[in-house]
């Protein structure tokens, strides 16, 4: 939880704010309504922020930050904490001057204003977005000492927009049209080729997240959303969609976001974020502070559909017990799992293993390495291990 790392006892014992005393906040008035027309988290939650690992990139403008998933509850990521990935920093776009152009192999090329797009019937869907590099620093060995860095390139919001299918019908895709190039308006003009099949299936063109307009960090005023696919395909600050008969093989689908195998050949168009899961309590940031009953909790997700089952191992994968799914179990959304048990100082090798509705079982790291080597950077969705020590501390380890 957000506050587990802080020591409560010390300060509290001496405090005038504990029963039977009347706390200071009960003896005074606070700020009135619209003191903050747009509200902020409590000053006591300053540690719940996005963080980056500086050495991952040359600098912060083409870089990534991670969501503090160790502090989050439920399945919604609040907008202020959604992870960031930029190739040219955050574009600051005037919404009145933003345009989406659809052209190429279409009957009628169209330019939409934001007002035009917001006139279409909207849909709202809760979907995760994950960077395919999530966990990628760990192909060769465990090197991230915190959950925020092992799994934090991951967020889940309620997104609102228009199915891309509707916009494509409006333009009229010609029979030769098979791929779509999506392009951003930021300085990187990030571009990805999307198969028409996906575009006609569940791709959305979205302008809102968690009820309000997109945050600048997430592509304000418009982005693509390819549910369940690697986050970089969900082009932010979306300005152009060109329909073509072949993929474009641009830099982000050749130089990057291809997966190098041990034999030196590379996989291309590795779109799907496969079934994954991680235990969020306990974790390095949330050590076990007291013996007794404990809820082992975590999140699971699959780019192929709904989570069907999550199992937990306490002994490094020798034996497994089924966990319970709790709350909403939605297609391509974070799903919470939970198992109440007892801890009395015994060391644990904690793992979670998710299974999705296609029957796919989250693999071991050994299985992934065997199939792909250790150079593929992306799509490391293997079972993750936490070592719980006798003092309740939790360490990131790899088990083989």
């Amino acid at each position, binding site marked *: 939880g957000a506050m587990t790392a802080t020591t409560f006892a010390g300060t509290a014992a001496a405090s005038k704010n504990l029963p039977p005393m009347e706390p200071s906040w009960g003896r005074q008035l606070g700020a009135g309504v619209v003191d903050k027309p747009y509200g902020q988290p409590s000053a006591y939650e300053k540690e719940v922020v996005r963080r980056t690992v500086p050495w991952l990139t040359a600098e912060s403008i083409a870089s990534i930050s991670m969501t503090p998933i160790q502090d989050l509850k439920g399945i919604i990521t609040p907008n202020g904490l959604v992870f960031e990935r930029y190739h040219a920093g955050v574009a600051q776009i005037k919404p009145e001057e933003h345009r989406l152009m659809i052209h190429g192999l279409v009957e009628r090329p169209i330019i939409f204003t934001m007002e035009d797009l917001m006139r279409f019937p909207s849909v709202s869907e809760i979907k995760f977005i994950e960077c395919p590099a999530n966990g990628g620093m760990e192909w060769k060995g465990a090197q991230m000492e915190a959950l925020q860095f092992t799994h934090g390139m991951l967020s889940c919001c309620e997104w609102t927009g228009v199915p891309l299918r509707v916009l494509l019908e*409006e333009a009229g895709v010609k029979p030769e049209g098979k791929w779509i190039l999506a392009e951003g308006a930021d300085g*990187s003009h990030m571009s990805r080729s999307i198969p028409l099949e996906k575009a006609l299936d569940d791709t959305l063109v979205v302008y809102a997240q968690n009820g309000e307009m997109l945050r600048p960090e997430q592509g304000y005023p418009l982005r693509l959303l390819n549910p369940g696919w690697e986050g970089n395909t969900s082009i932010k600050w979306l300005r152009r969609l060109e329909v073509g008969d072949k993929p474009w093989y641009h830099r982000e689908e050749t130089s990057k976001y291809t997966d190098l195998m041990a034999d030196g050949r590379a996989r291309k168009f590795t779109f799907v974020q496969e079934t994954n899961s991680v235990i969020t309590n306990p974790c390095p940031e949330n050590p076990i502070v007291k013996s007794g009953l404990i809820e082992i909790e975590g999140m699971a997700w699959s780019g192929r559909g709904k989570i069907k089952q999550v199992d937990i191992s306490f002994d490094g994968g020798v034996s497994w017990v089924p966990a319970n799914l709790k709350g909403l179990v939605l297609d391509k959304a974070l799903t919470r799992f939970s198992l109440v048990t007892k801890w009395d100082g015994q060391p644990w090798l904690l793992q979670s293993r998710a299974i999705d509705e296609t029957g796919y079982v989250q693999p071991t790291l050994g299985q992934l390495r065997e199939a792909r080597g250790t150079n593929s950077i992306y799509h490391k969705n293997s079972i993750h291990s936490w070592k719980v020590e006798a003092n309740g501390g939790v360490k990131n380890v790899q088990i083989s």
Partner: protein
Amino acid sequence: TPGMVSAGEKYGFGTTATAEEIQGWDIDIRPDGKGLPAGEGSVADGEELYEQLCATCHGLFGEGEGRWPVLAGGEDTLTEERPVKTVGSYWPYASTLYDYIRRAMPFTAPRSLTDDQTYQLSAYVLYLNEIVDEEFVANKDTLAAVEMPNQEGFFVDPRPDVKNNRCMKNCADPAKLQIVGTLQGVTPVGHFVEGADAPAASHQAQEEKERSL
């Protein structure tokens, strides 16, 4: 009647894009050369421009300054423990180079190059990678015709490629479990580990300790 809209009816929102409007934004290039503009650029002109606009980050020889991307070299490293993936060693198509320089480089001033300049720089980066010789002049025909060393190096995603079973008991021999700990001091954990702090996450610490990525 309200609520009755005929199926297949179009919304008619938005305006038809004119050829001129499209042309200004239609910047993408494909491997078959589709999208390449008129104009041309030589390796020699490229060299001058590269040294002016690119070398501070990518190095005089494309070797990359500091942590900025390496643009040349890395031949035959793709099976090594630390592959060096560059234009020469990894990229399957030369068109991608023109496309990417045009849309994103130089980093601090994207979309500032002319079509000719983009040809010049594409030619020069190919030259740095020994893919073309110093006489090379890039234009829409010559660039589309360049064959890249790793063109055949890519294949379509075969996933799901790994099949785990939902084993519940005796799934491994507990005596044989190998547990490898975390490489410490490379991630910033000062926000929850007492004593640990940001320096551990600096580029310097990383250079000494980093294992991968």
